[in-house]
């Protein structure tokens, strides 16, 4: 048997660890543990000189096992494995002790923290003796990417990848791509027209030879893992043959049934067969099966008669398409917070209390009022109030700052000023104008004579107490700078509603097996250093499905995910988990419990020399360990997490120091 020669390295992490844990004492303690030949402490083990200590000791002292006690292994285990490998050892002959996140940062008592650090190091030393060298394997990477969501984020990511001549499957739930950005009129702070900058991109996506676009489709099932995800896409029946439809719109005209248009935020109606908006991609009609009188009641077919191209196909059925991709980009966007739950704001009770997106449609030249800001009764408002932080920065709804509302409120203030002669009042708590050109935009609006009132609106009422208030909506708030309660009578109130996670985010998370934060948005792998990756390898997130953000940030994120996906494709292979299950055939009874319990179908019972035993398909095994727990005989073990290794750690932790 080889002699165990362990090297132990205690990191100070500046004062992050050394400020609480007595690192010298821990190193001294580790030095006298069985099998330890060298024990050092160093200011920053992750630095080059720190890593060199390990490499040198391997070469000079014949160290053949390494323990580093520093930050979380989720941070630097790969770093030190690499150092061990560079030193000439197998990278798995390494064990990490977490004495920062799990020790110095959570305990301020120096003695207790030092003792805990000693215990953790002792356990790591005991465990590392039992580590075996493991071989890292590679598997081919399928050079294609699934992008979920056809808003600006999804489109940008898809275009970047496709322009690199790699295959993209872009799946959009709605009949057209474009997302929320297609509903916007102008964009802050430059006030350039949203449509003008978006439609060329939409058109590119629609015609790109490397993009396979599936609109009116949903991802139904995802299996497999990085490099080889198998995806089932449900292409919902739109009852229109996409290849025949020319997008003339005759059918919608003839359709006798009208329903509120989602695109127009319910401010206008659309046909049951419809093209959501003029620039829709693909420019084909879709029958809304839920409302179609023929599909529901068996009578009508007016559209069929109107369609010269003969594109209507009532026999169409949902179709399941299966594709294989190497990586997935999630860009599913956001929902607008429904302010009706804040009863004192009177949304849906008062005609002229609008949400941001509704106002957006009013200002749009192609919108229901042809770009005129009008009250329900057709008058032009003489005064407009903008209420900030509706549903955000409020623990009763969403605790987070919704990030874009201050800026879009300024944009609305400008549009109201530009398109009407109205007085504009902004009710804000704090103005957050942090982006490029944003503070300048705020200055510009101040110059334009917008009234800024610092205070969270308490209620909106039509209960007039003065003649001036009669027939108006009265916005009640404290002006916190004056220290006075004020009542501002206005004609129109715009509620700057928060961006919130999509209603189906939970379900999407389940399908993709990615986590969500407490606020309901998708969780990034590391908030600062890995912001577009998820903890699941090969799945990336871009745009508002991760948190509220504006268009520039969304686009930047989308490009980042594209770069991540392209870099995986250009590498061509993925590293497979080395710490996987293995079977000792001399012990196995072939009972099949492992086969039953495995969610990845890695084990199967096969005949070996006539005897039925379990065999592990290494490409499928993820190393979750369920088979080892269920195995009654002890034939199955998980490499690197063997019973022997974990018990060594448990035993060491229960021993006296």
């Amino acid at each position, binding site marked *: 048997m080889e002699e165990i020669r362990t090297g132990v390295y205690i990191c100070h992490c500046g004062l992050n660890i050394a400020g609480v844990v007595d690192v010298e004492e821990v190193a001294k303690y580790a030095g006298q543990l069985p099998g330890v030949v060298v024990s050092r402490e160093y200011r920053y083990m992750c630095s080059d000189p720190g890593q060199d200590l390990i490499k040198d000791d391997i070469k000079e002292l014949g160290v053949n096992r390494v323990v580093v006690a520093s930050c*979380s*292994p*989720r*941070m630097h285990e790969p770093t030190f494995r690499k150092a061990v490998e560079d030193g000439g050892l197998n990278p798995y002959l390494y064990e990490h002790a*977490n004495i*920062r*996140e*799990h*020790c110095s*940062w*959570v*305990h*301020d*008592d120096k003695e*207790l*923290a030092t*003792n*805990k650090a000693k*215990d*953790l190091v002792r*356990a790591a030393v005991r465990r590392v003796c039992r580590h075996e060298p493991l071989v890292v394997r590679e598997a081919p990477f399928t050079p294609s990417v699934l992008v979920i969501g056809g808003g600006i984020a999804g489109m940008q990511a898809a275009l970047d990848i496709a322009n690199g001549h790699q295959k993209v499957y872009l799946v959009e739930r709605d009949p057209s791509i474009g997302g929320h950005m297609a509903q916007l009129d102008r964009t802050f702070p430059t006030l350039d027209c949203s449509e003008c900058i978006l439609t060329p991109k939409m058109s590119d996506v629609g015609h790109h030879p490397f993009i396979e676009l599936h609109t009116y489709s949903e991802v139904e099932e995802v299996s497999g893992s990085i490099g080889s995800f198998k995806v089932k896409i449900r292409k919902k029946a739109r009852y229109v043959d996409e290849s025949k439809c020319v997008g003339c719109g005759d059918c919608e005209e003839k359709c006798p049934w009208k329903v509120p248009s989602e695109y127009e935020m319910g401010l206008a109606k659309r046909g049951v067969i419809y093209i959501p908006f003029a620039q829709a991609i693909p420019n084909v009609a879709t029958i809304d099966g839920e409302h179609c009188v023929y599909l529901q009641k068996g009578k009508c077919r007016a559209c069929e008669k109107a369609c010269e191209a003969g594109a209507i196909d009532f026999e169409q059925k949902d179709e399941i398409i299966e594709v294989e991709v190497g990586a997935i980009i999630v860009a599913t966007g956001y929902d607008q917070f429904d302010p009706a739950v804040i009863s004192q704001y009177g949304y849906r009770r008062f005609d002229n209390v609008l949400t941001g997106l509704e106002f957006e449609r009013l200002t749009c030249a192609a919108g229901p009022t042809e770009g005129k800001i009008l009250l329900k009764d057709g008058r032009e408002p003489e005064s407009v109030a903008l209420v900030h932080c509706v549903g955000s920065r409020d623990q009763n709804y969403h605790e987070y700052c919704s990030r874009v509302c201050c800026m879009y409120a300024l944009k609305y203030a400008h549009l109201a000023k530009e398109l009407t002669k109205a007085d504009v009042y902004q009710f804000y708590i704090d103005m957050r104008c942090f982006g490029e050109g944003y503070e300048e935009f705020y200055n510009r609006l101040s110059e334009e004579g917008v009234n800024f009132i610092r205070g969270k609106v308490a209620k909106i009422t039509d209960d007039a107490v003065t003649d001036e208030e009669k027939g108006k909506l009265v916005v009640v708030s404290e002006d916190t700078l004056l220290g006075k309660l004020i009542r501002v009578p206005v004609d129109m109130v715009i509620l700057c509603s928060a961006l919130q996670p999509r209603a189906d985010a*939970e379900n999407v*998370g*389940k399908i993709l*097996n990615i*986590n*969500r*934060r*407490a606020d309901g948005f998708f*969780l990034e792998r590391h908030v600062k250093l890995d912001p577009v990756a998820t*903890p*699941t390898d090969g799945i990336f997130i871009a745009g508002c499905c991760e948190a509220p953000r504006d268009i520039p940030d969304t686009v930047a994120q989308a490009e980042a995910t594209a770069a991540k996906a392209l870099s995986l494709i250009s590498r061509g292979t993925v590293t497979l988990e080395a*710490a996987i299950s293995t079977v000792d055939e001399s012990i196995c009874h072939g009972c099949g419990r492992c086969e039953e*319990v495995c*969610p*990845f179908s890695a084990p199967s019972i096969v005949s070996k020399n006539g005897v039925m035993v379990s065999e592990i398909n290494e490409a499928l095994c*993820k*190393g*979750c*360990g*369920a088979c*080892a*727990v*269920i195995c009654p005989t002890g034939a199955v073990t*998980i490499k690197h*997490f063997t*019973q022997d290794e*974990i*018990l060594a*750690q*448990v*035993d060491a*932790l*229960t*021993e*006296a120091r």
Partner: protein
Amino acid sequence: MAGFEPQIIAFCCNWCTYAAADLAGTSRMQYPANVRIVRVMCSGMVNPLYVLKAFEGGVDGVLIAGCHLTDCHYIDGPTKCDAMVDKLREMLHVLGLEDERLRREMVAASEGVLFARVIKEMVEQLKKIGPSPFKARTEALA
């Protein structure tokens, strides 16, 4: 039971609860130093023997914590872990061990606050019920 400091071993899944404990650290949340974490890849990887051995070693409480049912990196690890814990609890019950000594939690990666709270609660609870009945065994052996 003055001065009694319970000893806890926590088996935490790499993807959720271990990350939650990291987050508790990054956010500098203070919690009692009575816990030692053993990292496992999945709560479904926790063998009942690990828990029994920890009790043999004289710990006062064991925590098994991992992803929520639908968050599992390996699809259904938490469900398997629950089934294992149910059986194990039955045995520990026959042994006369207080139910509180084996705690099963689901703590997502974002729930650093919850992790710190679970540890605090567990330490308080164990302080109330006192040392593990198996502690005397290790003391008798020593």
